[in-house]
C-alpha cells in the first residue's frame, strides 16, 4: 500500500550458495530492494503451500543489488526444519517473502568513525550498513566473531570494505580466541571510534554496550528475538526498552526495532517484565493527564 512500508511478494530464487557454514539465498525482489535500508530484515514463509510450519523465519538482509530490477540476499545457517527446507531450494523456486521489515540503523550525518561488531549470523546486517557508512565517508572497523572459522561471516568482504577487520572464534580456529567483544575496547581506542553498531545474541549486545559505555560512545544494537510474525501483529518479540520519557515499555523488536539505541535496552531484564515497566503487575496508572499517550514514543 505505502511506498515505505513492507510488501509481501512471491519472488523467484536466483541462487542458493554455500558460504562456509552458511547458505546464501538471493531472490529477485525489486520492491523490497528499492525500499531497503541497512538493518532491516525479511520474513520468509517456509515449507511450501501445505506446510505444517506456520511461522515465518526472519533473516537480516545481507545485500541488495540492482540486477534483475533488484535482488535481495540473506545468509543463514541450518538450525531446524525451516532453515533445512530453505537450504534445499533451487533457482527458479518461488519464495514468499515479506520485507523490508523493522527500523533501519540510523546513519550519522557526518563522516565519523564506526566500529561494527557482529556475532555469528549477526554479522549479516552489518555489511549493507558498512557500505552505507562508507558512502557517507565514515571510517568502518569490523569485528566479527563466531563459534569456529566457518561461522565467521564474510571475512573477505569485511576486510575489503573496512579499514581494519578483527576476527574472533570460540575455538581459536580463526583470528583471536574468545568473544568478539573482547578486542572491542582496543579497536575503539585505535580507530578512535565515535559509535559502535552491534548485532548478535543478547549477551553479546550487553557486553558491547558495557564496552561502549566505558569509552563514552553511543551504541546501536540490532536484536534477534524470536519473532512469530515480524510485522508487529503478534506481540511475541517484546523487549524492555526505556522510552524518552524514562518509562520502560515492552516494545516489539520487529517494528519498534530490531535496531535500538543500546543504552535504552534493559539487557539484564530481557526475558522478564521489569516491575517498573508500563503495565507490569502491580503497576499503577499515574494520574498525569495524557500519560497514556506517551507510549507512542516507545523505542
Amino acid at each position, binding site marked *: 500500500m505505502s511506498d515505505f512500508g513492507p510488501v*509481501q511478494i512471491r519472488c523467484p530464487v536466483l541462487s542458493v550458495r554455500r558460504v562456509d557454514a552458511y547458505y546464501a539465498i538471493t531472490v529477485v525482489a525489486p520492491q523490497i530492494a528499492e525500499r531497503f535500508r541497512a538493518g532491516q530484515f525479511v520474513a520468509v514463509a517456509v515449507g511450501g503451500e501445505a506446510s505444517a510450519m506456520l511461522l515465518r523465519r526472519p533473516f537480516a538482509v545481507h545485500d541488495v543489488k540492482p540486477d534483475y530490477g533488484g535482488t535481495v540476499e540473506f545468509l543463514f545457517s541450518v538450525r531446524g526444519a525451516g532453515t533445512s527446507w530453505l537450504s534445499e531450494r533451487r533457482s527458479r523456486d518461488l519464495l514468499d517473502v515479506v520485507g523490508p521489515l523493522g527500523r533501519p540503523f540510523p546513519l550519522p550525518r557526518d563522516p565519523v568513525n564506526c566500529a561494527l561488531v557482529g556475532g555469528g549470523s549477526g554479522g549479516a546486517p552489518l555489511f549493507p550498513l558498512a557500505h552505507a557508512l562508507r558512502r557517507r565517508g565514515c571510517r568502518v572497523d569490523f569485528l566479527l566473531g563466531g563459534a569456529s572459522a566457518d561461522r565467521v561471516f564474510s571475512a573477505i568482504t569485511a576486510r575489503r570494505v573496512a579499514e581494519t577487520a578483527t576476527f574472533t572464534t570460540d575455538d581459536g580456529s580463526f583470528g583471536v580466541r574468545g568473544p568478539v567483544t573482547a578486542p572491542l575496547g582496543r579497536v575503539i581506542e585505535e580507530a578512535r571510534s565515535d559509535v559502535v553498531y552491534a548485532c548478535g545474541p543478547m549477551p553479546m549486545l550487553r557486553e558491547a554496550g558495557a564496552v561502549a559505555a566505558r569509552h563514552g560512545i553511543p551504541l546501536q544494537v540490532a536484536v534477534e528475538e524470536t519473532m512469530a510474525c515480524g510485522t*508487529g501483529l503478534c506481540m511475541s518479540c517484546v523487549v524492555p526498552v526505556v522510552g524518552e520519557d524514562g518509562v520502560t515499555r515492552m516494545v516489539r523488536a520487529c517494528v519498534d526495532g530490531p535496531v535500538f539505541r543500546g543504552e535504552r535496552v534493559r539487557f539484564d531484564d530481557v526475558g522478564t517484565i521489569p516491575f517498573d515497566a508500563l503495565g507490569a503487575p502491580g503497576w499503577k*496508572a499515574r494520574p498525569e493527564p495524557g500519560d497514556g499517550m506517551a507510549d507512542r514514543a516507545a523505542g
Partner: protein
Amino acid sequence: MSPDLRTRLGSVHLDNPVLTAAGCAGTGRELAAFFDISRIGAVITKSVMLEPRAGRPAPRVAETPSGMLSATGLQGPGVEVFLQRDLPWLLSRGGRAGVSLAGSGVAEYAELARRVSEAPGVSFLEVNLSCANPSDQGRHFTDDPREAARVVHAVRSHARSDVPVFAKLAADVPDPVALAEACAEARADGLSLVNTVRGMAIDPRSLRPAVAGGMGGVSGPAIRPIAVGCVYEVHAALPELPIIGSGGVRTGADVLEFLAAGASAAAVGTVNFHDPSACVRILREVEEALTEHGVRRVADVIGAAHRPMGAPLGGADAPGGA
C-alpha cells in the same frame, strides 16, 4: 454476476464475512501496509483492558504442527489510549470495528462496555471471557457458565443498547453448549467461537516449557476441526444466535466450512502472522468458491452442514442472511 457477500451479526450488517480475530491484527494499523482494511467485514481489535498492561515475559510463542502456542498476556496500552488513538485511526481508514473487551472482574467489564460502546463508530462488542476470574481462584470466566453469564449480563446492561454484544468462548470448557446457553440467557446478542485451546510445548533443546509460564493457547489450522465442531454443536442447539467462527481460518474454503457449520462470519487469527495479506486473499477465495458452488448469496451457506445431504444450498431458512 459476483456473489452477494453481505452478512449480518445480529443488528449489524457487514459487507462480507471475513473478519480479523482479536489479538491477531492489533487495530488494523499493521495490516494496512498490505491491504485496504476497509475491504474486510470488520476488524475485531485486540482485547482492550482498563489499564495499560505489560503482558507476559518472553518467550511468548512457540511453533507447533500447523499451529502455534502463545501466551502474550493481553499486553496493551489500556482503554484510554485505545479510544484516543487506535479506534479513531481504524475508523478514519473506513474500517468496521468490533471491539474486544477483557476485564479482571465484572465491574471492569461493565465500565469497559460503557466507555467503549459510547465511542462513536463501534460496530459491536466482543467479550473475551478467557480471562482469569479473581473471584474464582483465577480460573477463567468460561470455566463456569454462571460466572460467564454474570459478565455478559453486566456488559449487555452497560453497553449502548444498539451495539450488539458477542460472548467469546473457548472450546475446551466443560460443556460448550451449556456455556453458550448461559450466555444467551444473559442476553448475549451472539457468540464468538472459539478462543485458543490450552496446551504446552517443550523446547527440544532445554527440555523445559517453550513458553514462559508453561501453559499457553494453541491456535492456527491445527485447531480448526475442534473449532468447527464447537460451532456446529452450538448452532444446532441455538440456531437463532449469530456466531463469529474462528480457529485456523487459512483459506476461503475454511470460511465456508465455518459458515456451513453455522457461523455468520469467520475471523482470521494466527494466519495473519503467516500471511499478512491473508484476509483479502481469503475474501477472493470465498467469492470464487461461491461462484463454483453456484451460490449467489454467502448467507445461503450459513448452517448448510445441518441440512440433509442433497438439500439445495440457500433458501429462506438460512439464518443471519443479509
